[in-house]
């Protein structure tokens, strides 16, 4: 898929751990891992909103389109 997830970069910038983000969003660490590794097929607006709210960023900071 041509969509890259830059969640790792955003987490590193804020010096935040994955489990901490998962806990604050209200999803499991397993699901966050699926999202981080790019195995997810889709992301809910509510999840994206929660991530952006906690990381204080824009959706474009997390998702990036790379032509295949």
């Amino acid at each position, binding site marked *: 898929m041509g969509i890259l997830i830059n969640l790792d970069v955003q987490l590193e910038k804020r010096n935040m751990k994955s489990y901490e983000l998962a806990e604050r969003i209200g999803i499991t660490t397993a699901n966050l891992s699926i999202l981080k590794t790019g195995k*997810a*097929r*889709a992301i*809910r607006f509510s999840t994206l909103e929660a991530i952006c709210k906690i990381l204080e960023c824009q959706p474009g900071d997390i998702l990036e389109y790379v032509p295949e």
Partner: protein
Amino acid sequence: MLSLNDNLIIMRKLIVLKTVIDFIWIVSCIPSLIFGFGWIIYMFFDSSILGIVESDIFSSESPFWQKQLIFLLIYAIACGFIYAIFLFRKTLRFFQKRKPFDDYVIKTYNLIGKLLIVLSVFSTALMFVVKLIFSSKMFLNLGFSPYLLLMCLGFFFMVLSESFKIAKHAKHDSELTI
């Protein structure tokens, strides 16, 4: 998400279905298989036993070898149906384990569908040929016949298999939606 009550209703229906299929399997399929096999073997050793059989398929004057051949073919068709019931019975276990979209179920439903279609076509052809040879009648039941219904059931199983394949894909997508 299904509620606990919905799950209980589904499970109850599944238990009833499994019980009925088990009943058919024990009371009808296994004895038919055993006695049918015994009959097939015995009729080749003592063909006079075929004299006691009266049927509208063939006349009592028909030669023994023809009767033997017909019985052999009928037994082969019956074995096919019993195998289809055996496969269906096996898939019900996956439903009990809450794995209805398992690959085995999808493949087996497709196989059952193909088997039923082949058996219905074969049965129709057999009955047509037998009536033509023994009764000199051209008879083909295209109305409300069990063969046509069986063929429909076969296609239904194949459609069900395809539907399960789509459902499995949708379930997978849903699981990977974060």
